[in-house]
Structure formats: structure tokens, C-alpha cells
């Protein structure tokens, strides 16, 4: 169970030094960070089934979505998004751009293929 890692990433992405504040209601960047946190916890669902910290995080995330009026669908980012250079919608709606913005440009993104054909 790696819920602590999710917590740490979320704290890092919402810390004052990242340019984000939890009380910045309706902040697009904050919602991105929150969605990333939610995604990270979802991925731990199986391994953290019996972990209290995990269940607390799930509960808290639900509350935060509601408090900040964040939609659960939308872009996520696993890294800091500086609010001073907020990206345009067209950039946020481009996966490749988001990868570049999240600072993992040097790290090649992996793609998977699925195909169905014939009889």
C-alpha cells in the first residue's frame, strides 16, 4: 500500500511554494491536483483495502471535491502546476502538452496498443 506517496504528492502540489492554496476555491490548478490525488488513491484501492490512512484519504478527497466545487472528470497532473503560468485550455486539452508541463518531458511516456480483428 503506497497511500503515503499519494499523500506526499498531493501535499507537494498544493503547498504554498507550488503557488497553490487549498482555500483557493474554484481554482483550476487546485482541481487538477485534487484529481491527481484521487487517481493516485484509486490506484491503491486493492493494495490498501484494509488501510485506515487510505480510507481517510478517500473520505477527505470526496469532501474536498465538494468543498472546492471540483469536477471529478478533467485533466490530472502528477506534478506541480505553477499558478503563475497557468496554461491555456488548448494546452490542458492536449495530453502531450500536459506531460511536458508536468515536467516529465525527459521521461518518455509509454503507450499501449489493443487490437481486435478477424474471426
Amino acid at each position, binding site marked *: 500500500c503506497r497511500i503515503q506517496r499519494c499523500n506526499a504528492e498531493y501535499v507537494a502540489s498544493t503547498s504554498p511554494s507550488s503557488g497553490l492554496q487549498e482555500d483557493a476555491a474554484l481554482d483550476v490548478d487546485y482541481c487538477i491536483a485534487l484529481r491527481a490525488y484521487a487517481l493516485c488513491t484509486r490506484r491503491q*484501492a486493492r493494495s490498501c483495502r484494509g488501510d485506515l490512512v487510505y480510507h481517510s484519504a478517500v473520505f477527505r478527497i470526496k469532501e474536498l471535491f465538494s468543498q472546492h466545487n471540483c469536477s471529478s472528470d*478533467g485533466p490530472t497532473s502528477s506534478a506541480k502546476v505553477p499558478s503563475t503560468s497557468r496554461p491555456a485550455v488548448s494546452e490542458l486539452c492536449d495530453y502531450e502538452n500536459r506531460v511536458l508541463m508536468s515536467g516529465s518531458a525527459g521521461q518518455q511516456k509509454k503507450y499501449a496498443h489493443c*487490437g481486435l*480483428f478477424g474471426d
Partner: protein
Amino acid sequence: PHLRTFRDEFQTCKVEGAWPLIDNRFLSVQVTNVPVVLGSSATATSKITVIFKSYHGCTDQKVYQATTDDLPLAFQDGTRSGGESGSLTIVERGGSGVGRQVKIQARYIGTSIIVRRVGSYLTFAIRMPEDTLDFSEDNGGLQLCLHGCPRNELIKEHTLGRQSQQPRVQGTSTELGPLRPPHQVYTVERATAKCRETLQVEDVYFQSCVFDLLTTGDPEFSMAAYGALEDLKALPPSKLKQNSPRTPRLSNRGVSHAAAAAA
């Protein structure tokens, strides 16, 4: 149909009726497969439905549906794109490709889809970033692209061998899919020659081609295998794992033996 999963596993399945290929928070893909010949459990795809789920600020929910009779160049609402920045678009693929092809580009999730109509059936290919897939997702395990086909839906060599005792009769009922003229009977040698003509490299796609010709006698299926290989090249996984000739990494290893038995 033949399935190449996100994990690069290769399977041949029955999966008759409607089955989910993908179902996550970004999109759902469902296919409908119908039997192609009497006396065989082999099926082919007659309908594909893709639901692009609403993605805040980028696109509203859009539904794309293709059938054997209709491969539209638009979503069900008549539009060809979603979102202001063109983050979801449909284009027709041209060139020297096999059959009619439609490519759907979902830039906001880094995903591309190719749907083809080859002969009387459809083929499907998708490329998605691995970080948008959740392999640990536990929703009944029914996502063929993620987890492959359930065991009891796999077509295995022993099953084929037993079925091969019965002569294959071409389906003529609409219940079995589109009406098709009777096809020729292929021997292993003729099927192999035909597939070699189309595919050249003897990999899993080649073996699928031989299997399909022996099962149906329909030469269009060799073009479906060729199209699927072209789609793999157009939408490659990061680490392209092409199998070396005659040493396939098949889940249903030994398709060629099964095909020979069927003949």
C-alpha cells in the same frame, strides 16, 4: 475475433454478443460479435460503440458507433469534433489502406482509434497512454483489452480439433450475421500461400490469417489481418513487441497446428 491486449498478449476468442473492450473514466468501448460460419464458434465483429466520456473543459460526452452497414465519419450527434480546441476529432484515413477506415483522435487523453470495415466485418485498434489505464481496476474483469478474454471464451487447439470433425457450412441466416456468398474451401497449403502473399512475415497476424481462411474460406479475412498489422504500425505501443517468425508468443499457442487440424 483475434485480440491483441494492452499487455501484448494475443488471443483468439468466441466472445459472441456484446462485450466491453475498455471501460474506464475516460472512455468505454463495446463490441458486438456474431458467428461467421455454422459448426464453428468463431465470431467476427459487427458493431463497435465508443463512448468518449465528458472531460471537463475539453469535450462533452460523444458517442461513436460503427456497424457493418455503416462506418460513419461523425459522432452520433452528427458532429465531427468535440471541444473548442479540437481535442476530439474524426477523420477518414485514405491511402493504400485496406477497406474503409476512420481514425478518431482524442488529444486530451493522448488516445487514437482506428476502425476499419474489411469485407463484411469491422476491425478495431487503439493506442492509449499507459498512465490512463488502470490495470488494477476490478470491475468484474470484463475489459477484453485490459484483461483478455475469459478462459471459457478462448478458442483453443483441442476445441478446434474436435470441431474440425464437422464440415464447415457457411452461414446463410441473418441471425448469424450478414448474408454472404458461399466461399471456397482452403487447404492449409492454399491458406498459407494466400496469407504469405498478403502478410509476408510469418508472425501471429499471419497465423490468425491462416486460421481465418481455414475457418471461413473468406479471403477478406486475410485483408483484415493485414489491416490490423498496419494499425499496429500506425498506433504502436512504446515497446513494440513483434514476434519472431514461427516462434509466436501466443496465449493460444499453436494456432497453426490447430488450423492444420481443422483442415
